């Protein structure tokens, strides 16, 4: 019986540790001079060797340079209650700066309600996409008047 308890204890410990694993974060343009923020707090001062410790069911990652935010993305842990999730986790790149406040609300609400259902892994590597969502919008002619917009 003591052996059974020990196995159950180790299993519970393993489940807890799943929530504290590291995740490599990079940026899509390969630069090293972005600071990486996790849920609004500085996680790495450089973007070339950034390992972020995972926590909760979702995280908001942001790449920032010279105090200017360049891109953000939400990374989710897989929850068994999610339908249609094909991989072990889902990643949602976004430039929407409102995502952070929404995410905070979702995380707080889900922490109490569904923490037992979310035992999946975060991805081990994440790339924050820098640049416009539509590549046709790259090199926008900012120096020209609005009337000559593409």
């Amino acid at each position, binding site marked *: 019986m003591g052996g059974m308890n020990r196995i159950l204890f180790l299993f519970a410990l393993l489940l807890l540790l799943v929530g504290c694993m590291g995740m490599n974060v990079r940026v899509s343009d390969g630069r090293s001079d972005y600071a990486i923020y996790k849920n609004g707090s500085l996680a790495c001062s450089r973007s070339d060797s950034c390992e972020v410790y995972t926590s909760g069911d979702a995280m908001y990652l942001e790449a920032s340079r*010279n105090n200017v935010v*360049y891109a953000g993305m939400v990374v989710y842990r897989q929850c068994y209650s999610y339908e249609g999730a094909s991989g072990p986790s889902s990643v949602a790149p976004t430039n929407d700066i409102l995502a952070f406040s929404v995410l905070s609300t979702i995380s707080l609400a889900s922490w109490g309600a569904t923490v037992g259902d979310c035992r999946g892994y975060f991805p081990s590597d994440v790339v924050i996409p820098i640049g416009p969502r539509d590549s046709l919008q*790259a090199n926008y002619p*900012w120096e*020209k008047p609005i009337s000559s917009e593409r």
Partner: protein
Amino acid sequence: MKIFRSLFVVFLLASALWAKTEYFILPVQLQGVHEDYAERITSLVKEYATIDGYAIVSKKEDCDYLLQIKLLREEVGVAVIFEKLKKNDKVVWSYGHIAYTPDDFIPIVSYVSRQIK
């Protein structure tokens, strides 16, 4: 007499609660960006001020805070920088976000507006 005094205090507190924060927008600082975009972002700020319940005033002396907007050309887009300043030009809050196209002005202004209201 005591009732009138109490009512006066309540009135003062209520008016302080209802008072809107007033901002004066300083001329937009531009670097490598056409001045049309200064006009566009200024009008967006005015629009969101109405939504979020603060006021943009036309006279500097009437404001509680100054709002400095900077549009600075970067390699991949434009850095949109907002600074909230006291009348003595001391920066009390700032925020910067890249805009890859003018469409990105909307979420940036929306976020800033909710922060400074």
